[in-house]
């Protein structure tokens, strides 16, 4: 009969109490998984959307471009650099883009906005939010798979304002790298709607090769390399790997550096969520402490017997801690059973809150998806069980110390 088995059996002396305490731990696991998972999904969704709108999770640009964007600050050998960056550890995809300012006109109206040169073959729906949000038309690729060099994609609001539809002509005007004003005509091949008014009003996508030619950037040039990795948390490590792969002469930045407002939002929201989880943890810890303390006080005589027959105080301490660890493990298992179907539901179906919202929620130029899903970061699979483990041990310290400090002679006087 070792301590592990003895502690397990002790656990079942008060089945109801053990189950209630374990269920409270399970509840904490469920809450932590739900809140951390939904928040993680939201951060990933926001950062992912932002990444697919321009900069990627990690961006490579010419020095000074991020502080003062201009097409003259370009990467001349962007294609070979993209190839090098693709081989860096953690990189899923690298997409060269030309980002500049332009004027967009029809016979009736003119508006200004962002000109985005994309490679339709690489800027797929997965990598490009505008392509993903296409409501009409196609993504600058013909049926034969060839790039539609004379096409463009515009936002729904611009289409409405400029009275454009698929097939309409749009004149776009920009300043090339030599400072000359250049103009081209493009036909509208696609219309997207992101939900963000400014974006839908002022963004035009062109084939990158067309933009390179017209703006005299060079055949392999881009103003930015948008690098994608599997999750937003890993961006710092990917930045370092990419930086090493592409070498000096360019600036490699994470989304936190290129999107500081969004990074701050994520940081503050994450901190408040963690404080909330800590408070829940403290409430659960109080429950465990109560259970363990009652267990020790009710068994004073028996624990005194163990000391009297020769159990060392530190072993008795370990016995009580082990009992608490069992409660924690049981809570983790019950929590896991509770969480699995719930997490699957959130992951696959989600909770649609759009009916509750009168206006869409926008953070850092990205529309928040009102169907909540769940996504756990790799770290959560370790952090949540570890937190439960610390919680159960921390909560048992006082009862365990009390048990270890019992004087057998006094404990033996306690009546059953």
């Amino acid at each position, binding site marked *: *009969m070792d301590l592990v088995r*003895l502690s397990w059996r002790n656990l079942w002396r008060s089945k109801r109490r053990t189950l209630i305490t374990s269920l409270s731990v399970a509840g904490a696991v469920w809450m932590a998984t739900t809140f951390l998972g939904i928040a993680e999904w939201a951060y990933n969704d926001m950062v992912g959307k932002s990444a697919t709108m321009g900069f990627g999770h990690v961006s490579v640009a010419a020095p000074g471009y991020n502080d003062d964007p201009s097409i003259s600050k370009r990467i001349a050998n962007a294609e070979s650099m993209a190839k090098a960056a693709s081989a860096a550890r953690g990189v899923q995809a690298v997409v060269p883009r030309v980002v500049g300012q332009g004027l967009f006109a029809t016979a009736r109206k003119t508006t200004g906005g962002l000109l985005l040169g994309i490679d339709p073959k690489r800027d797929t729906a997965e990598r490009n939010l505008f392509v993903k949000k296409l409501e009409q038309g196609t993504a600058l690729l013909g049926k034969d798979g060839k790039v539609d060099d004379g096409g463009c994609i515009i936002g729904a609001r611009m289409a409405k304002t400029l009275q454009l539809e698929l097939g309409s002509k749009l004149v776009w005007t920009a300043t090339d790298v030599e400072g000359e004003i250049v103009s081209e005509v493009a036909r509208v091949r696609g219309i997207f709607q992101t939900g963000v008014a400014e974006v839908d009003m002022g963004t035009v996508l062109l084939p990158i090769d067309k933009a390179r030619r017209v703006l005299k950037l060079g055949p392999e040039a881009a103003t930015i390399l948008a690098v994608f990795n599997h999750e937003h948390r890993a961006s710092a490590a990917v930045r370092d790997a990419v930086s090493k792969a592409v070498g000096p002469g360019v600036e490699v930045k994470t989304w936190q550096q290129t999107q500081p407002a969004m990074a701050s939002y994520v940081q503050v929201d994450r901190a408040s969520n963690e404080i909330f989880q800590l408070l829940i943890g403290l409430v659960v810890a109080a429950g465990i402490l109560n259970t363990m303390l009652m267990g020790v006080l009710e068994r004073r005589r028996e624990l005194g*017997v*163990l000391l*009297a027959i*020769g159990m060392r*105080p530190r072993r008795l301490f370990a016995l009580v801690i082990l009992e608490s660890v069992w409660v924690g493990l049981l809570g983790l298992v019950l929590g896991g059973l509770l969480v699995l179907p719930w997490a699957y539901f959130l992951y696959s179906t989600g909770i649609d809150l759009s009916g509750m919202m009168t206006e869409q929620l926008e953070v850092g130029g990205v529309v928040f998806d009102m169907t909540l899903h769940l996504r756990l970061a790799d770290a959560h699979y370790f952090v949540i069980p570890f937190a439960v483990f610390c919680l159960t041990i921390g909560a048992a310290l006082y009862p365990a110390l009390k048990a270890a400090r019992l004087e057998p002679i006094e404990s033996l006087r306690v009546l059953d």
Partner: protein
Amino acid sequence: MNASASPIVELREVSRVYHQGEFEIRALDGLSLAIEAGEFAALCGPSGSGKTTALNLIGALDAPDSGTITLQGRDIGGISRTERSELRRDKLGFVFQAYNLIPVLTAFENAELVLMLQGMPDKERRERVMAVLEAVGLGELANRRPDELSGGQQQRVAIARAIATRPALVLADEPTANLDTATAESLLDVMEKLNREQGVTFLFSTHDQKVMDRARRIVRLRDGKLVADERRGEEE
């Protein structure tokens, strides 16, 4: 067994004073006593005479205010809590009035508990425990939990637990107090047999005449002092 061997435990001028508010209770007052290997001895006296206090001091469950207690030649007066635990584990066996078995453990597991604390290997431990359970007549009931055993059977398990480690001395505090006459006699038979056949040394604290009738040495206490020390038995 021969009672003329060197003392297992020796008390010299031992005093223990308890304080209850303003009152001072002198539970033991200069007690000197030696218990030798193989003895089957009883500390007797009325309530408050100091017999349980003496047993607690000998069992390293308490420490004296003055005087010295030596167990197998080692002064146990000033040793640490952990050392006292180890001493109780390795040198002493305890039988309590209320049996004090661990309710979640079977008879076998209760009996093996101290051996487990000693770190005895599994195989040796199992053999030892089965042997002691057989010795106390409980070989068939090894897998029963305390609540499935009668009072007498529970006390036999307690004896098995106490003797499993082959201690220098078994201290039994009123072991028959909760048992009916027949069960108490049967239990005393077991302890007497262990004493005679295996040389287990027993020291009882009792005011049960049945125990006193069986004991080969009666140490009488009154007001914490030794008033009589009578030896009897086959050696006389």
